[in-house]
């Protein structure tokens, strides 16, 4: 079959913060750059980020990048690579000031500098006191950032392919990455985007879980494409959960509700957090609250007919306070839980929020994979940044405001690496094999010819239920083991998904079937990696790896201070060392210690 071909210096998949930042670097350097996006760029999920972007500018309080580095390593539970972390925190001021120059409307201090506010986990003097490090534009930081970057890209003549979905990563027999195949939703036609450099910036895959704060578009497309093309996925057992998403919907109920006096209750109406955290109670840290909630549910004290959630109660607050201080939360509760929190408690459940793992990269944004004994060998022509990538700066858990920083720093860094590799003559336009588009065409032909089979929505739901039950916020040996078997069954059923609508143009059913293929790859990686890691670390907490004097917080550095690599072809795992050495001699390594706050 004849497939149209377009040729670029660089093709970027994804137009959220990381994709736009990378694109800007490339377009401003004069490279012919294409950006593919399923949705209009300013509707990417980066828009949902509210908290801010971390940078040790020191505008509002004293600060130093050493302290930011310490906080990030500690937050990662020492799984983060210290070279990448040093790189990120040292680049922070530069990328934030650049954004300011692009017109980003940061909040200001009285003397006109960027105002900074405190955020959980960020400290001065190595954990001694909170620091004001988060640069924000009211509660719309991600939104403002994306608009500033998009406008700048338009000025730089970046070529956007909007409402295009990348389907498969193209590689030749030597492993060089040659671009992607992509589907234009408006026509249903497939094209090859042939490029010297391919940059993935496709965001996270939080929607593999039943309860997720992620928008529908977050289907892990980049991870699925990379996995199918033989690139391993790194550390996908690590997912950050938020304790209070509306049960059945996932929409976040902010921590501020508990700050205002909200109380978590089980089916007996008991304020159960008094048992788990006698001092802080409902205001304990996110992971403690989440695990307590899951314990209540697992021990049969959950609420509702399926006993699958707990209640967040603010009925004891006066209606005036609720209307005045929590109007948005009241609206969300009424709309998504059919409950007016003035009169009745809100059903909530721990909800998947952020993916720490992803496509393995180094601090330059180059995708790396094992080759000839080196686990970090760059894959020629392939780069990744943002939530889809694993640099790894977040390790086993991410600090708030470090995600926007990640996408700015590594989006730019990936762009710079492409330019550097291009100038050094290392980015040839390798010829396309004759069968370059065959995998993609076979996937589409299978969907076209499938006469019956499994509904996409059924398979997706089975995947989401399996992930939530077997690899949720609190993990159990037997459940994980069953989960592996179950997710492989679900993956098998995904091979025979069936769509009624076979039309070519704007066929959303086909889009969802193709997205599901990507989600399944991520789900397998997450479940298998989680089952294998026999310790607790950061966001991966196992019931059978408890806090003991020998293994504080259940962490086992002797056996598990290493990154997981999952390979799709046969579901096998490999491991590679964590880089405990900073990038430069300007920073001391952050020595292993128990993670306590």
């Amino acid at each position, binding site marked *: 079959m004849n497939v149209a071909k377009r040729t670029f210096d660089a093709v970027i998949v994804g137009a959220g913060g990381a994709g736009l930042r990378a694109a800007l670097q490339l377009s401003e350097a004069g490279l012919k750059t294409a950006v593919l996006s399923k949705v209009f760029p300013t509707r990417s*999920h980066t828009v949902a980020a509210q908290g801010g972007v971390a940078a040790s500018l020191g505008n509002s309080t004293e600060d130093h990048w050493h302290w930011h580095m310490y906080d990030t390593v500690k937050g990662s539970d020492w799984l983060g690579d210290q070279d990448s972390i040093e790189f990120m925190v040292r680049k922070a001021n530069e990328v934030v000031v650049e954004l300011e120059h692009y017109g980003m409307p940061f909040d200001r201090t009285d003397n006109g500098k960027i105002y900074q506010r405190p955020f959980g986990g960020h400290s001065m003097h190595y954990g001694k006191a909170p620091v004001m490090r988060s640069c924000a534009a009211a509660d719309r930081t991600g939104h403002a950032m994306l608009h500033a970057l998009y406008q700048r890209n338009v000025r730089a003549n970046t070529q956007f392919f909007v409402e295009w979905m990348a389907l498969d990563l193209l590689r030749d027999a030597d492993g060089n990455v040659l671009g992607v195949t992509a589907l234009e939703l408006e026509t249903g036609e497939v094209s090859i985007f042939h490029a010297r450099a391919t940059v993935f910036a496709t965001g996270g895959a939080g929607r593999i879980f039943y309860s997720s704060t992620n928008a529908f578009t977050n289907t892990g497309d980049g991870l699925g494409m990379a996995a199918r093309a033989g690139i391993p996925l790194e550390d996908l057992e690590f997912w950050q959960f938020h304790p209070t998403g509306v049960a059945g919907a996932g929409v976040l109920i902010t921590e501020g509700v508990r700050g205002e006096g909200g109380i978590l209750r089980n089916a007996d109406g008991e304020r159960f957090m008094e048992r788990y955290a006698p001092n802080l109670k409902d205001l304990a840290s996110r992971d403690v609250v989440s695990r307590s909630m899951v314990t209540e549910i697992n021990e049969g004290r959950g609420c509702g007919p399926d006993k699958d959630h707990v209640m967040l109660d603010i009925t004891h607050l006066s209606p005036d306070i609720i209307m005045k201080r929590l109007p948005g939360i009241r609206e969300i509760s009424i709309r998504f839980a059919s409950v007016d929190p003035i009169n009745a408690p809100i059903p909530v459940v721990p909800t998947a929020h952020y993916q720490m793992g992803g496509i393995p990269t180094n601090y330059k944004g180059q995708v790396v994979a094992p080759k000839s004994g080196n686990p970090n060998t760059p894959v020629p022509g392939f780069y990744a940044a943002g939530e889809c990538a694993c640099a790894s700066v977040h390790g086993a858990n991410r600090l708030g405001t470090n995600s926007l920083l990640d996408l700015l720093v590594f989006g730019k860094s990936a762009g710079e690496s492409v330019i550097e590799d291009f100038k050094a003559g290392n980015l040839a336009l390798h010829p396309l094999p004759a069968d370059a588009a065959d995998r993609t065409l076979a996937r589409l032909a299978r969907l076209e010819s499938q006469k019956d089979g499994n509904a996409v929505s059924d398979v997706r739901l089975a995947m989401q239920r399996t992930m939530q039950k077997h690899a949720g916020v609190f993990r159990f040996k037997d459940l994980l083991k069953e989960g592996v078997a179950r997710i492989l069954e679900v993956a098998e059923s995904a091979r025979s998904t069936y769509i009624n609508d076979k039309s070519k143009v704007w066929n959303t059913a086909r889009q969802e079937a193709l997205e599901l293929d990507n989600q399944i790859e991520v789900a397998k990686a997450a479940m298998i990696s989680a089952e294998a890691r026999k310790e607790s670390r950061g966001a991966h907490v196992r019931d059978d790896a408890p806090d003991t004097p020998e293994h504080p917080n259940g962490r086992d550095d002797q056996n598990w201070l290493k990154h997981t690599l999952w390979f799709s072809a046969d579901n096998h795992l490999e491991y590679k060392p964590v880089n405990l050495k900073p990038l430069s001699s300007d920073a001391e390594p952050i020595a292993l210690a128990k993670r306590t706050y």
Partner: protein
Amino acid sequence: MGIERGKVRWQCRRSLLELDLVLARFLETEFDRLDDDQLADFADLLRCDDHDLWAMVSGARECGTGRWQEVVARLRQC
């Protein structure tokens, strides 16, 4: 030439989960009943920034554009 319904359906994919959920319900219950004029108004409304759209749908802000008001009212019921 009329507006492509499939395109409008796809453009209900948004950056915020809140909007995805409301628009998914709207697609299930209301979308197929929109006539051509209403479809045009809806497509136009979808050009708004997501935070602005959510403010209108959630009722935090009034919808100041007359021809969007009917569809915003229907979205508020979803």
